[in-house]
């Protein structure tokens, strides 16, 4: 019995030590964000902010049009979520609930595109978008999502659709329902948890996306949060408490979202890891 307690204590010691390493950077970000500039420039470091400067936040958030950046990010997220939900669910349905010749071959082609480095298609697409006047807008990042560009979402939905009993569809077909009816009225309502996961991941993807906007967005006022955050570094590279306040402002919403939706999250990731 004492051996068991010892082993369990050892596990906790290891877990706490590792946990501390994972938590330190985030804790340090939040602590720094409340410090004064002079307090960030000491060695050895001072752990606790004194005085506690709450107004680092209003200061930094008003120094740049962060409201605008948040809004741009939300619109970008919302549009692509609509695109992904429509196109990925249709495509996933075709790749899972219907049997037809060439289905598996095409499905593998789709999976293979995951391995294609994005730089292999970037330049011709950029030139194409320039011709149609999309540079400077979010269209190059939004339009492809309506055409199944999110392979991850399609794959996840397909995995989920395959777990729904085929007999449900067969019964509806017997009653004369057409395929689109079965898709929209029978399968989709059952796939709500998977759709929630897709929406969540797409949201996080857009929120964090840096390289897409970096390439296509040139005007400061169209910047999303990720580029705005990078901007602050140029302005305030000396005052790390302000930089960390901005970083916290960009991080905290996503962490709160995570806590509210933890189950969806973890199950979703687990689903993508399953083969089939």
């Amino acid at each position, binding site marked *: 019995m004492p051996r068991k307690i010892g082993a369990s204590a050892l596990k906790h010691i290891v877990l706490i030590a590792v946990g501390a390493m994972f938590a330190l950077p985030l804790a340090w970000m939040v602590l720094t964000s409340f410090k004064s500039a002079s307090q960030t420039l000491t060695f050895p470091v001072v752990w606790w902010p004194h005085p506690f400067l709450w107004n680092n936040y209003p200061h930094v958030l008003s120094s740049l049009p962060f409201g605008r950046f948040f809004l741009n990010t939300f619109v970008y997220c919302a549009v692509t979520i609509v695109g992904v939900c429509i196109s990925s669910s249709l495509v996933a349905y075709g790749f899972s609930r219907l049997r037809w010749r060439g289905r598996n071959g095409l499905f593998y082609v789709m999976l293979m595109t995951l391995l294609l480095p994005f730089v292999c298609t970037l330049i011709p697409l950029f030139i194409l978008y320039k011709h149609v006047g999309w540079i400077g807008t979010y269209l190059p990042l939004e339009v492809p999502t309506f055409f199944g560009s999110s392979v991850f979402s399609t794959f996840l939905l397909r995995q989920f659709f395959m777990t729904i009993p085929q007999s449900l569809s067969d019964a509806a077909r017997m009653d004369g329902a057409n395929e689109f009816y079965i898709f929209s009225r029978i399968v989709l309502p059952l796939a709500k948890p998977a759709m929630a996961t897709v929406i969540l991941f797409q949201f996080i993807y857009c929120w964090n996306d840096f390289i897409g906007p970096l390439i296509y967005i040139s005007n400061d006022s169209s910047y999303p949060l990720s580029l705005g955050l990078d901007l602050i570094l140029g302005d305030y590279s000396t005052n790390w408490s302000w930089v960390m306040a901005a*970083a916290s402002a960009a991080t905290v919403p996503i962490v709160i979202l995570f806590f509210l939706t933890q189950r969806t999250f973890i199950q979703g*990731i687990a689903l993508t890891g399953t083969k089939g």
Partner: protein
Amino acid sequence: MRKLRTPRRASASAPASRVRRSRRQRRMRLGLLFVSPWILGFLAFYLYPFFATLYYSFTTFTGVGNPRGVGFANYSELFHDSLFRTALFNTFYYTAFEVPLSTVVAIGLALLLNMNVRGRAIYRTLFYIPSIVPVVASSLIFVWIFQPSFGVVNSLLSDVHIEGPEWFFSVAWSKPSFILLGLWGLGQPMVIYLAALQGVPREMYEVAALEGAGPLQRLRHVTLPMISPVILFNVIMSLVLSIQYFTQAQVIETPAGSPGSSTMFFVIYYYQQAFQDLHLGYASAMAFMLFILVLIITIVLLKTSSGWVYYENEQQ
């Protein structure tokens, strides 16, 4: 709309096969209809630009006017470009450490979490959260905690009488710093491994224990083979991502510079060539080289995987 299934009859084989064929065609049309958004997207956003990149790689092109054919000149220039070699080396260096380390650490953490400990959900959350922190934010956080003169890491190191290095600001330590940043955000594969571990049937461990296998032997002969397909999947995905390493290096270049070109990665160089210097032909040649590289690595991995990846279904 749909007729009930026509029963198969040997006597009427000709019309029956025609019915079957037309049904098959109808099913194929329906299938294609559902996946048509992706097919259109594939043609427009993958296939066309991929071949256009290949075409541009044999030209000089600045984005205005017409591309001018130069044969293999871009490729031969690449082989003599020392900055390109540096970028290739840095990318390999990062990949060679990041992929194995993150695999081992992610599996290790998943094993820890899979043990019967109280508060498992709290630890899992703690280990996972860094992976959803916006990349720009996590890059800024890391520059700051690894700041040579005022950073918390060097402060902690000095508490135990170690003089911390210059991290992102030094030639020798900049890439290891990026690797640490990568390891901090490995929540995604960790959760996938954890799910895989929970899928290993309990009886297998019981049988192994009955046959006298110790914990290490169980890990070696039960756990790892059972999760090996998931390991392959994760290794391929993290390889492809590491080779395209960009955002963190781009963000951290602003405060830390790129000491002695030590953080010049493949895609950073590509980005400079394509979008700053407008050497579109040259950049296209780089892109195609990257494609060949990913292709070779993936094929090698898949070919050798039959030696260590175990698929349960095959055995039955």
